């Protein structure tokens, strides 16, 4: 009777395990790369308030202003909240806070979408510059011309419409804020 060849079995197991590990790592690389530029799933103009709550749960706080409802969600920081603004039952725009490199750099967005159409500023934060990609419905707030601190998601629209309908409500401005001096 032929003896069972454990040695060959061992070789096969090692080969399969190594191949699996390599495959997992390769998949991880490519899915991570996709995450950098992938917009969030709650698409402005399509998602409703109910959709937002289904995905994210009940907001930490909520306020109404005119015909708009602002939903605020906790982030990893106690000092920053993500926001969704709902108008006529649909998400008008949302702002996501980014605390690390997971959403890439400005260069990644420029490489994918070309140069931003224009730049606006945060009404409070003198450091951030909001790079607006109109056709993609993205506003990328950067510091040091590269690091991403916030992302504005909106329906693709004209510059005029954005400046009128979204910029003021999103706390943005055409000019940098001026702060009072320290005594």
């Amino acid at each position, binding site marked *: 009777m032929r003896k069972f060849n454990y040695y060959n079995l*061992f070789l096969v197991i*090692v*080969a399969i395990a190594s191949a699996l590990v390599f495959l997992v*790592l390769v998949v991880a690389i490519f899915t*991570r790369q996709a995450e950098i530029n992938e917009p969030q799933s709650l698409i402005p103009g399509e998602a409703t308030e109910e959709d937002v709550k289904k995905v994210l749960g009940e907001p930490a706080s909520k306020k109404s202003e005119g015909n708009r409802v602002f939903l605020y969600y906790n982030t990893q920081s106690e000092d920053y909240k993500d926001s969704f603004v709902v108008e006529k039952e649909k998400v008008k725009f949302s702002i996501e806070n980014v605390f690390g490199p997971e959403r890439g750099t400005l260069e990644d967005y420029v490489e994918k979408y070309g140069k931003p159409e224009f730049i606006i500023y945060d009404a409070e*934060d003198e450091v951030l510059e909001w790079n607006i990609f109109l056709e993609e419905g993205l506003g990328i707030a950067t510091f040091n011309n590269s690091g991403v601190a916030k992302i504005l998601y909106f329906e693709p629209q004209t510059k005029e419409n954005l400046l009128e309908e979204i910029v003021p409500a999103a706390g943005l401005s055409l000019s940098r804020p001026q*702060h009072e*001096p320290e005594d």
Partner: protein
Amino acid sequence: MKKIKSVIVVWLLAAGFWLLATNIAFAQTPIEFPVQDTSTTIVGTGEKILTPTPTRPPDDEGPNPDPAPLCGPLNIIINARLKEDFGIIMRSGTENADCETRKAFYRALSIPRKSQTFMALLKPRTTFIIECSINNSIPGSHGLVPSPGTKMYYKNCYKIKENFKPYAFLVLHETGHVMKWENYRLLQQDFPRTRLTREDPNCFQGGVIKTYNRRPTDSYSLTSESSAEAIALYVHNRKDGDYADIFNFKSECPSIYQWAKNNVYGGVEFN
């Protein structure tokens, strides 16, 4: 023997495979840049800090400034040292920033210079400008760091010659704002103002560290000014503010003190 050789070969191949795979994966993983002192405390992350890992300097005996360098003819020497040591270009606006004023600014920053972590946060790549302007209608001195963070305006710079300590504090507070531009995540986004307000409630008023001489209402300014004030308080340990005083920052505001110690000064203490 043949079998043993085969086993070794297989293991080497598997190990090589593993190394290749991990190198490919991690080559594309963005690196968070930890700024680490020789105290081996991870002091936070910063964007685009290019200096090598600092070593911990010896503890100072107290927050005393170093002697300033000579000015030289036309302030050539002091200007060169301000630029080389702190990345500062000092300009006269409507006020003539004379030799002694420039030396006082140098001395003001020579105190925190003892921390290599602080210096790494201050001097990543660019210089910044300090511009002095006279303003006879105000008794004190004002500092302001407007966009894009490369210029610092002072009204009545000369006051630092007459009363060094409070104006040295102001210089360090404003320098904290300059550092924020280059270290946005660390000094603004990640500054845990709400937590610190909870842990050191007696050190805050209206959401900002109470020795700050204004009371902003927007959340960005509350954080920005608290961060800068903490950077200055850590070194000087006290301030007589317009609204409130702190006489011993280390004992009165231990959580804020710890934040500054770990994230800005790499464990180096001045008090």
